[in-house]
């Protein structure tokens, strides 16, 4: 049995982020017709008019949680969905908006950006009260995570098609370096240039290093990452420890933050 008897109901939900992962799905032009026919897409803001759903088999959730209203919606999704998949680095790690969390208190930052009282009354009803950005697994149980900024088609399709076929995708964490070596690339770190490949989750086919651009870590932290040794290496090639940590934190999100604090 490698296909469900009934077409699974799928919802694509978006929270705070650039909506790039929803766009990435719509950009899979060769597979797009199959995407909308192989499953019953009931909720997909970017592609369809708003629809209410009672229940979805699979919820693809993109974006981090930034307001209390989003949090309530997220919890509702968890109640209505059998399987929740975190889609993209914002949902899996917190994304760029996770940055700065530990530098100042959240209230202080709000004051800094929005003025004296730190409130935005005209928006609060629409979007809810802001809270520090967090990846979705901080609030609900997540069944599968597909990192990416945005998710790569080659990475997304095998996991997604297994889920809609009623199979269980396997988890196999590997860093960018693996696909970088598949491409036969030389290593930036050996030539005194920074590259975050060894600590970044793979799945992108190492597209940046292949085109001569070092990895900035947009897929978030790789599960087997050795941050201590990575920072040492970055210092060796001329970065200060602070710079190295800032570079790691750019997309690193919560996992990197905890590792840098030594709590992992």
């Amino acid at each position, binding site marked *: 049995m490698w296909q469900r008897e009934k077409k699974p109901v799928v919802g694509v939900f978006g929270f705070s982020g650039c909506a790039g992962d929803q766009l990435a799905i719509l950009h899979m032009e060769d597979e797009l017709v199959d995407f909308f026919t192989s499953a019953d897409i009931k909720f997909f803001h970017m592609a369809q008019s708003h629809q209410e759903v009672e229940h979805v088999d699979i919820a693809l959730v993109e974006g981090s949680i930034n307001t209390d209203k989003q949090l309530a919606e997220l919890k509702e999704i968890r109640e209505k969905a059998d399987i929740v998949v975190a889609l993209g680095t914002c949902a899996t790690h917190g994304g760029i908006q996770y940055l700065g969390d530990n530098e100042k208190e959240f209230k202080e930052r709000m004051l800094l950006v929005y003025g004296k009282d730190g409130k935005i009354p005209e928006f609060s009803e629409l979007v809810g009260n802001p809270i520090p950005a967090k990846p979705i697994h901080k609030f609900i149980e997540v069944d599968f995570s597909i990192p990416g900024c945005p998710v790569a088609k080659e990475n997304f399709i095998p996991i997604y098609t297994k889920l809609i076929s009623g199979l269980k995708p396997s988890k196999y964490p590997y*860093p960018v370096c693996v696909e970088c*070596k598949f491409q036969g690339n030389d290593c930036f770190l050996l030539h005194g240039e920074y590259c975050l490949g060894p600590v970044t989750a793979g799945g992108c086919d190492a597209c940046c290093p292949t085109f001569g651009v070092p990895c900035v870590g947009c897929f978030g932290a790789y599960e087997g990452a*050795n941050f201590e040794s990575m920072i040492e290496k970055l210092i060796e090639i001329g970065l200060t420890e602070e710079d190295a940590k800032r570079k790691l934190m750019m997309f690193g999100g919560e996992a990197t933050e905890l590792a840098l604090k030594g709590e992992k």
Partner: protein
Amino acid sequence: MSKILEFNSKLLDYMSLKFSIFSRYPYRLPYKYYVKNSLDMKTYKMSKDRFPEFIELIKTKGQLYGPVKGNGKYSFEEIEKFEDLDFDYQRTVIGPKKFLTPPRYPTLRYDKSGQADVFVSDEPQIVIGVHPCDIHGIKILDRLFLGNIKDPYYEKRRNNLIIIGHSCLPDDNCICKSTGTDMVEDGFDLFFTELAGHYLVWVGSDKGLSIAIEAEDFLTEEISEEEIQEYVRWQQKRSEMFKSEIPSFKYLADIIHLNYDSKVWDQFGEKCLSCGTCSLVCPTCNCFNVEDRISMNTEDGFRERILDSCTLPCYSMVAGGHDFRPDRTSRLKLYYTHKLKEYIGRWGQPSCVGCGRCVTYCPVNINVITVSEALYEEVCENQEVCE
């Protein structure tokens, strides 16, 4: 025929009488072929200016791949014209194993009606410019994939691959002299040794011989005594160029055994980035993962083999979720004990061919040289067994 034997005996004379200096590495020219199969296997000479014509000829035999320089590194790429080739290289990032066990390739296609194996086409692939270490690497892969149980996907690729070796000069990272793989006597179809004005061409197989016969316009069997001397001098020069050496490489298996619980491993484990580079670039590492990839229409799909690395976190995870090697130290230990110890126990030689890729490409300097040096030091400190 008599000429060949004459040449052969001359060569043997030189070796045994004048150059006993090479006693540890006896002259391993493919002379045994003359003895075994004297009618078939030959050694030729080719003038360098005929080489482009030879390349043109060989291109008619199948898709030609060869070393190409690009972005500051070398790789085996498709060759359109002779000028693309650059034989002045030490190592490519990925060796010729990419023709035999590519990083990812489909093995099975299926849809709801059934399934079918996926094989590569019968079109031969020719790879030129392969160094002795990489040929040794292929010999090790052959042993693993074409042993008692033959891997059909590998076998098909191997049978379609024509290997044309090329001589090389070592750099500081080459350790093939220590591993005993700096010369090669079989495993290739043709082998070119580059001398001042000409190539010496060794024939290593029937396939190679048939190419040589076809290329008889470019090849001559007349090799003068002077040219043999030139070759011997060249080998001597090459032998002296090796800078890096692993002391008493053959005892390394014992040293690893003695040091199995040493804290040296922890030190390397702390440093290791667990990025997989060492094994992905290694010409003898061949572990793969198998994944099913279902198409978006959920009607069909394919099964893929993906090159794996034992330094990755879930490599030793089994059904049920237990991971036998959750930490970097134990994974690194697995890599080195397998390569330098266990393989010797099984096959009488390490599965390191001294190509120096791990030495060149590990970002944090964990490689055969640093690991073996650290282990030797450990033994010397503790047991005073070192001279």
